[in-house]
C-alpha cells in the first residue's frame, strides 16, 4: 500500500476538467515530484487529496485514509505536513503565536531544530513578513510535528537561491530519515535535484510517471558538432535523432583553411554546424560521428526542460518561459 494512492481521480467544475481521471502511487520514503505548468491541475489534485475538495469521481487515499472520510483524515493529518502554494497566516498574529497554535494541536517536537535552519522573525506580525519569510514559516509548520508524509505545493517559490539550496538539502536529509515527500513544481531543475520519481501532469491528465533517471535516459544527449566540409541533410537521421538543425557556413577567413587536408574540400573553408538531441545508443552515435572530420564536438545530458518540451510540445506557451527560469 502506497503512502499516497490515487485512482482515476477527477475533479470537474462544470465543463472544466481540472483533474481528469489520474492514477498514481507514492511509495513510502521517496521524494515524489508532481510536475506540470501552471493550471495543469496540480493544486486541485493536492487539495482534493487533503480533503478540501470533494472528488467528482475516483478515489484517493493518504496514509491509508480515504480523502473523503473526515474522521480517518483527521487521524492521518497527525502525521501529514502540508505547505500550500502561497502559505497565508493571520496577518495580525506573530509567527510565534501561529507556531504555538500549530504546536498545541499537532505537536512540535522538531520546532527548535527547524528554527535553526529556517529563521523567520518570530516576534513580528505576519503582516510585516516578506513572501520568503511566510514561506519559511510555512515550511516550519509543515515539518514541526515530525510527519511521515509532507505534501508541498511549489515549495521553493518565494525563497531566495541560497534558501532554495538549503531547502533542497533539507528535503534530501528528510528522505534519508524516512519521510515521504510529495511536492509539486513547474520548475524542472528543482525536481531533478531532489526527486526520485516524477509524475507529469498536463491539462488535468497524467502524461507519465517515471523514475527520474529513466526520464533523463529518455531525454538523451544534446549533440553539437562543427564539421569540416559540407554535410548532407541526411547524414544524421533515424529514429534516435530529434530536432536536427544544420547550418552550413562558408568561412573564408576560417582558421581551419591552412591545415585543410580534406581532398574533397581542399580549396574551400566550408563548415557545417549540426545540433540535435540523441536518444539512442551512444556507440552508434560515436560511429556515425567518426565518419566526419570534426572541428569541435559537445555531447551533454539534455536538460530536463527538453524532456518537458517533448511531453508538452511547443504549442504550450508557458513551456518556453519555464525553460528560462529552470536554468540554474
Amino acid at each position, binding site marked *: 500500500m502506497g503512502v499516497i494512492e490515487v485512482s482515476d481521480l477527477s475533479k470537474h467544475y462544470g465543463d472544466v476538467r481540472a483533474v481528469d481521471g489520474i492514477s498514481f502511487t507514492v511509495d513510502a520514503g521517496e521524494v515524489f515530484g508532481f510536475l506540470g505548468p501552471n493550471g495543469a491541475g496540480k493544486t486541485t489534485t493536492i487539495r482534493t487529496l487533503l480533503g*478540501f*475538495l470533494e472528488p467528482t469521481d475516483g478515489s484517493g487515499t493518504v496514509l491509508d485514509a480515504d480523502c473523503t472520510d*473526515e474522521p480517518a483524515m483527521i*487521524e492521518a493529518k497527525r502525521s501529514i505536513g*502540508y505547505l500550500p502554494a502561497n502559505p497565508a497566516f493571520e*496577518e495580525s*498574529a506573530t509567527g510565534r503565536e501561529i507556531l504555538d497554535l500549530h504546536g498545541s494541536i*499537532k505537536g512540535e517536537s522538531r520546532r527548535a531544530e527547524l528554527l535553526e535552519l529556517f529563521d523567520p522573525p518570530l516576534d513580528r506580525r505576519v503582516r510585516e513578513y516578506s513572501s520568503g519569510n511566510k514561506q519559511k514559516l510555512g515550511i516550519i509548520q509543515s515539518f514541526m510535528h515530525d510527519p511521515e508524509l509532507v505534501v508541498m505545493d511549489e515549495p521553493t517559490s518565494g525563497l531566495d537561491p541560497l534558501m532554495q539550496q538549503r531547502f533542497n538539502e533539507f528535503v534530501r536529509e528528510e528522505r534519508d530519515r524516512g519521510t515521504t515527500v510529495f511536492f509539486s513544481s513547474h520548475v524542472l531543475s528543482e525536481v531533478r535535484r531532489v526527486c526520485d520519481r516524477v509524475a507529469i501532469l498536463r491539462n488535468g491528465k497524467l502524461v507519465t510517471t517515471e523514475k527520474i533517471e529513466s526520464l533523463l535516459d529518455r531525454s538523451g544527449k544534446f549533440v553539437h558538432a562543427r564539421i569540416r566540409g559540407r554535410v548532407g541533410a541526411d547524414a544524421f537521421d533515424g529514429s534516435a535523432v530529434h530536432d536536427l538543425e544544420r547550418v552550413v557556413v562558408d568561412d573564408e577567413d576560417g582558421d581551419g583553411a591552412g591545415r585543410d587536408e580534406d581532398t574533397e574540400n581542399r580549396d574551400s573553408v566550408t563548415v557545417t554546424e549540426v545540433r540535435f538531441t540523441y536518444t539512442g545508443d551512444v556507440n552508434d552515435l560515436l560511429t556515425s560521428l567518426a565518419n566526419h572530420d570534426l572541428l569541435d564536438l559537445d555531447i551533454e545530458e539534455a536538460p530536463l526542460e527538453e524532456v518537458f518540451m517533448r511531453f508538452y510540445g511547443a504549442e504550450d506557451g508557458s513551456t518556453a518561459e519555464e525553460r528560462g527560469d529552470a536554468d540554474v
Partner: protein
Amino acid sequence: MFELARYEARRRLRGALYLSVGLSLLAGMYIGTFPSIATDIDLDEFIEQMPDIFKELFNLATMNTIEGFLAAELYSIGWTLLLGLYVAYSAASLIAEDVDRERMDILLSLPISRARLLGEKFLALGVPIVVVNVVVPVVVFAGTAAIGYPIDPVNLAIVHALSIPYLLACGGIGIVLSVLVDRATIAQRGSLVLLFGLFLFESLTVVAGYDWLGSIAPMRYFNPTDVLVESSYDLLGGVVLLVGAIALVAASAVYFRRRDIE
C-alpha cells in the same frame, strides 16, 4: 481540545476591552446628561408626539426615569442594534475571511474536524460578548449611583444576562452567511444588512398589526425596556434565542463540513 478556541479568544481580548471602553464611555455620556434632562424637560410628552414606529424601534416607554432613559438610549440602540451588528459582522468573518484570504488550507491541515474548527471559532466570540456584559453594567451601576439615580442592580444584571443569548443569536445569523459565501466582504455586509433589516422588520410588523411575522427576528425575544422599567423578564425568550443560536451554528457546521473549500 479547545486549543483553537483559546488562540482565537486571546486574539479577541484586546478588541473586547476596546469595545467595553467605548460602550462604557457611551453609557457614561448618557448617564451624565440625565440629571439635567430629568429636571428641565418632560421627555414623555416628547415620546407621545412620536410616530408609533419610533416608539417600537427604540422601545420607548418613559424617559423620565433613569431606567426608561437608559433602556431607550443605551440598550435599544447600543445593545440591540450596535452590539448585535458588531457580533453578526464578526461571526460573518469567521469562516469567509479565512477562505477568502486563503488561510483556510493551513488551518484545515491541522488534525481537527471542520465542525470543531467552526465551533471553536464561534466560541471565541464569547469573549467580547462576555467582557462587554461584565464591564458595562458595573460602569452603569456606578455611574447612576454617582448622579443620585441608582438603577436597580438586579434588573441591570438580568438585562445584561439576557443580552448574551440575543448576541449569540446575532452571531448565529452571521456565521450562516460566513459558510454560505466565500467572499468575506459580502458575508460581512450581508450580515449587517440582514440584521438591520430584521430590526426594522420586527418593529414594522408590530405597528402594522402582524406581530406574528416579526417572531423570526431575534429582537422579538430581547426587550431591555420591559426588564429595566417593568421588571418583567422574558426568560423563555432567552431560551428561544439560545436554541436558535445553537441551531444556526449547527446548521452552519453541517454545511461547512460538506462544501468544497475554494
